[in-house]
């Protein structure tokens, strides 16, 4: 059996304050109260603030998750002076550039950009290492008068705006009456495609991998791609593979709400171990629907609307190279149907059982990567500190098994040592365990620790087909062949 390893990962962040208006919650609320958006606009962050935001710098790899422990909250009041739009784990792009990428990702002329803005976006992207000549040629403009006419003709086109409210283009729906190809759905899907493509190009470039060398791409985003007869038909993965130049790849999408990426990594590892494929990429695009999800709470607190970034990611996995961390296929934790819904049983299935399977203990994991949602976003609006809640349950399980003392101090120490503050944008599937992957690869390569556990949960019940949630986990191990 081949040993499956995780070779590299990249995150692609796009700061999109103008697109916050098209998140599901802002769309709903502004339709009821038009004045709300004028108020909200005053709380949209400029690009420089998004770059200097410490949690984003953690995701880009320019600072560690643990460095947030000593930073007083709210973190948006403490911009990071050494910030950069690029880091070892990824990049954070501006909304002007992202609109250019959206146009370049659109092969069906759904997005129209105004002439002047198209030229501006083209100019901004001209020297970007991941943008091709073909992409630039795709970024063509139309006269503003055509955009005004289209927005007024009642065919369901949506305006595309910048943070300051300036209309720079539109997205139109498919001509026929098909709710699965309405403008808002197409915008969601194009946003996912563009951000995942940028991440895939970045991980290929960063790891020195030829796109032709990837044989399979697994999509793990939450968007439903299809038309009226096959809503959710899927395989956005193949569109992303095509856009990234992976001509020898096919692919498929794996769906399981927020825990799909961890499922996808396990499937990728299994395909590599079995010898079916040598090189597999796991990708996920940004979730446009979740932009501004808690904007009412942020407005009530007179704080910036922090849900203003799209995040795509790409993970490159392959056969053992003697260096990269190993995904232990004998360590898979599963929230099976029979596990039920109680928190303790779920965490036993995802954490205790896998540790038993491989004969390791709670403290053998250098870090646990769980729901990594940024508490700046959630605590301020009363939805709690999600990672901390998860770490406390893991610490309680460790205490119950006698692996740490059952005192509050011992549990808190375990949480501080083996957990970390949340730093991920609330981008659904992106936030579940995956944000820590770049840091875990770094720490496992330098042997700062030998093991890290990744556990993710998915809210299946939201689709109203079951009351169940889902969950899955694995252990990542330093490569045994590494010096």
């Amino acid at each position: 059996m081949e040993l499956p390893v995780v070779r590299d990962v990249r995150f692609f962040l796009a700061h999109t304050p103008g697109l916050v208006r098209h998140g599901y919650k802002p769309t709903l609320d502004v339709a009821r109260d038009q004045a709300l958006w004028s108020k909200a606009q005053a709380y949209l962050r400029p690009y420089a603030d998004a770059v200097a935001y410490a949690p984003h710098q953690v995701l880009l790899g320019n600072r560690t998750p643990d460095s947030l422990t000593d930073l007083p909250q709210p973190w948006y009041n403490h911009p990071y002076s050494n910030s950069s739009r690029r880091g070892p784990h990824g990049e954070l792009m501006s909304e002007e550039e992202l609109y250019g990428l959206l146009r370049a990702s659109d092969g069906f002329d759904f997005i129209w950009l105004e002439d002047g803005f198209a030229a501006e976006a083209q100019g901004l992207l001209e020297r970007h290492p991941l943008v091709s000549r073909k992409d630039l040629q795709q970024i063509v403009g139309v006269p503003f008068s055509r955009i005004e006419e289209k927005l007024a003709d009642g065919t369901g086109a949506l305006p595309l705006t910048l943070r300051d409210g300036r209309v720079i283009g539109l997205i139109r729906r498919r001509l026929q009456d098909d709710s699965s190809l309405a403008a808002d759905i197409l915008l969601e899907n194009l946003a996912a495609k563009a951000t995942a493509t940028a991440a895939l190009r970045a991980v290929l470039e960063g790891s020195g991998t030829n796109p032709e060398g990837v044989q399979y791409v697994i999509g793990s985003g939450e968007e439903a791609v299809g038309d009226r007869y096959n809503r959710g038909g899927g395989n956005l993965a193949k569109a992303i593979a095509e856009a990234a130049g992976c001509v020898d790849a096919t692919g498929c999408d794996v769906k399981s709400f927020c825990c799909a990426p961890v499922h996808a990594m396990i499937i990728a590892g299994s395909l590599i171990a079995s010898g079916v494929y040598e090189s597999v990429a796991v990708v996920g695009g940004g979730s446009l629907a979740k932009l501004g999800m808690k904007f009412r709470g942020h407005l009530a607190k007179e704080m910036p609307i922090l849900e203003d970034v799209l995040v795509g990611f790409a993970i490159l996995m392959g056969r053992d190279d003697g260096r990269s961390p190993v995904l232990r296929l004998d360590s898979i934790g599963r929230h099976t149907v029979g596990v039920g819904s109680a928190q303790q049983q779920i965490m036993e299935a995802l954490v205790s059982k896998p540790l038993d399977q491989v004969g390791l203990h709670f403290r053998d994991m250098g870090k646990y990567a769980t729901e990594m949602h940024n508490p700046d976003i959630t605590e301020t609006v009363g939805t709690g500190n999600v990672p901390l809640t998860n770490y406390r349950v893991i610490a309680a399980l460790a205490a119950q098994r006698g692996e740490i003392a059952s005192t509050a101090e011992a549990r808190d120490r375990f949480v501080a040592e083996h957990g970390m503050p949340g730093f991920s944008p609330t981008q659904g599937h992106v936030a579940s365990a995956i944000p820590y992957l770049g840091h875990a690869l770094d720490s496992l390569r330098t042997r700062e620790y030998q093991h890290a556990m990744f556990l993710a949960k998915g809210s299946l019940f939201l689709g109203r087909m079951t009351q169940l949630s889902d969950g899955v986990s694995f252990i990542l191990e330093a490569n045994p062949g590494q010096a």
Partner: protein
Amino acid sequence: MNLKGKHVIIVGEREGIPGPAIEACMRSAGAEPVLVQTQCFV
């Protein structure tokens, strides 16, 4: 509180106590759940 015979509406939360876990408690106390939902706030 005597819940025997009471109709209850249950709204749980994934990271806290999910709906089915509350439902099991309610049924054991003799209540009759008429709606069980779980929400996810992230």
